[in-house]
């Protein structure tokens, strides 16, 4: 029978191989799913893995989707490495979008070209404040950050809904729940013409580099991770668990808020109830599949965008429901968690 034996040291080879194996298994399950639904599995795989990278424009769209996923995942990596389970990134994204939108609405035709910086800053601050709520409740009241941050997602959704159905509704918008479209000055600058890729991509890549330095070359990053791996050792060393908590939540709140600002002042261009696209939750998967490592998360963000775009294409061209994306995302995370066992355990065949 098969038995699991603990390895003396986590296997480096499997640390890299496990996500690849998980992707392979997910693809296999996907093929089976397509066949069960009566669709051509080859065309299905094409939608997900070939179409999104076929043309320069397609690549651009891939980057547009990957940017918020990567940003949020980078922030979540700080949290998860510190054993702070912030699963309310979606809520921080929404509030970031709301604050960014609020500042954008203040603009008029005369506003300066640099207005977008204020918009982006407002988004970051909004996300930080919303995450700060979770931090305060955990710090002062010892309330579980998992449940509080989650509840705040629903509250954030209600805040957005209230604003776009109420005070911020566009009077010239035919009574649709949406704000005015934002002035050009508030729009995030594009990187190149002919593509929707914005400066946000550069920000995300810079953030990935900064995270690498923080985690692997600074004492503060080291302290943060010890808190997550061995809290008693962190206490022994004298690393403040309170500082670790606040750092983790404020950084991830800022990242999620920034992502929200970039979305709202970029591709969407206004506030609507459809701003929350589930990026906050998908980013959790991006973070894990990317092994909570900046380089890995860049790759897994691109992979997750392929799932999103593939899902949209599968809907328009194959007639499959859009929710298939969610199924694949969940499957991927399950497979990754299962394959990760091989990092710390060895499979052995034992005679009964």
């Amino acid at each position, binding site marked *: 029978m098969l038995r*699991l034996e*603990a390895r003396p040291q986590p296997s480096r080879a499997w640390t890299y191989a496990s996500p690849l194996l998980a992707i392979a298994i997910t693809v296999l399950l996907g093929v089976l799913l397509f066949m069960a639904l009566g669709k051509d599995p080859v065309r299905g795989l094409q939608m997900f893995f070939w179409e999104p990278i076929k043309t320069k424009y397609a690549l651009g769209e891939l980057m547009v989707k990957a940017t918020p996923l990567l940003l949020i995942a980078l922030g979540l990596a700080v949290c998860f490495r510190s054993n702070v*389970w912030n*699963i309310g990134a979606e809520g921080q994204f929404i509030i970031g979008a709301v604050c960014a939108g609020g500042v954008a609405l203040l603009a008029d035709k005369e506003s300066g070209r640099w207005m977008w910086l204020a918009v982006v800053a407002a988004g970051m601050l909004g996300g930080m404040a919303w995450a700060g709520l979770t931090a305060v*409740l955990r710090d002062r*009241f*010892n*309330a*579980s950050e*998992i*449940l*509080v941050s*989650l*509840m*705040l997602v*629903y*509250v954030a959704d*209600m*805040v957005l*809904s*209230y604003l776009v*159905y*109420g005070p911020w509704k566009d009077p010239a918008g035919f009574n649709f729940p949406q704000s005015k479209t934002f002035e050009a000055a508030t729009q995030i600058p594009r990187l190149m013409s002919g593509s929707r890729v914005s400066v946000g991509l550069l920000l995300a890549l810079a953030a990935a580099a900064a995270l690498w330095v923080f985690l692997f070359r600074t004492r503060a990053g080291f302290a943060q991770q010890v808190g997550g791996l061995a809290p008693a050792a962190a206490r022994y060393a004298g690393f403040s668990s309170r500082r670790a908590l606040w750092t983790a939540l404020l950084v991830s709140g800022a990242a999620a808020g920034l992502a929200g600002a970039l979305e709202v002042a970029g591709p969407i261009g206004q506030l609507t109830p459809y701003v929350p696209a589930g990026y906050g*939750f998908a980013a*959790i*998967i991006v973070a*894990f599949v990317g092994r909570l490592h900046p380089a890995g998360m860049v790759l897994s963000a691109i992979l997750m965008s392929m799932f999103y775009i593939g899902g949209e294409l599968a809907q328009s061209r194959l007639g499959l*429901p859009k*929710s*298939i*994306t*969610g*199924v*694949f*995302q*969940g*499957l991927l*995370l*399950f497979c990754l*968690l*299962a394959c*990760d*066992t091989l990092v*710390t*355990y060895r499979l052995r065949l034992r005679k009964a």
Partner: protein
Amino acid sequence: MEAYALLLAATLNAGTVLALAALGLLINEKAGVVNLGAEGLMLCAAIAGFVAVVHTGSDLLGFAAGMGAGALLAALFGVLVIWLGTNQYATGLALSLFGVGFSAFVGIKYVQEKLPPRPQFSWPVLGDIPLLGPALFKQHPLVYGAMLIAAALIWFLYKSRTGLVLRAVGESPASAHALGYPVRLIRLAAVVAGGALCGLAGAYLSVIYTPLWVEGMVAGKGWIALALTTFATWRPARVLLGAYLFGGVTMLQFHLQGAGVDVPSQMLTALPYVATIVVLALISRNPTWIRVNMPASLGKPFHPG
């Protein structure tokens, strides 16, 4: 006065979903396993139950389907967490995310479907008492079922030897293992039983409470149920009470809207979530209380040496 009787009835009804789910999670947590996948699990059970009733017309089959879906997903979660040793929080999240997507996917065809008319229930004599009758005695059998389950759990956990073993496993799986108890099997049994109850809650939601299917219809009740077990300090009677309290808060929002109170509807919708946060904060404040009542091994993995 009529209105208050109806409000009480609605509270009991609304609380039942939370109660069933939270009691299921309680069983999990007494064995030391926290299942963050409750939300996704309940959604899958809801669509399973709904589909079963649409195709067979039988409510009982709907409940069975819900329980089955819940048990199956919980078993998958259990094997990953208990035998492969995956992180309980991450795996639970994975289950939630998967459940949201999967239920939406399967439910696409059923969004406009209607169920056959829902049966009305009433206790023979008690249901006719003015005021008290409509308030307490005209509920669906599962409402009373939830109360019975809570009572049964109290007996099971605190009066039976099997329940004692379960609590011992949750307190110290290493000690239970040293004494020769099959800790992993016991934990799996608890997880599957808990999953079945959560599944029943999901099916109740889509078959009885709001008999329709909409993507994401559990709307956070799975998470609220998780919070409930914490602030009920893992005691079945308190879980039941807490569930009704939350049901009450949810009903309050409709009552206030109906009464023409001038508060934006979104704020009222947010009420149960805000209430959860507030209660969590108040209860978690006392670390001593938590330490004495919380199963000591909650969330921690167990590896037989």
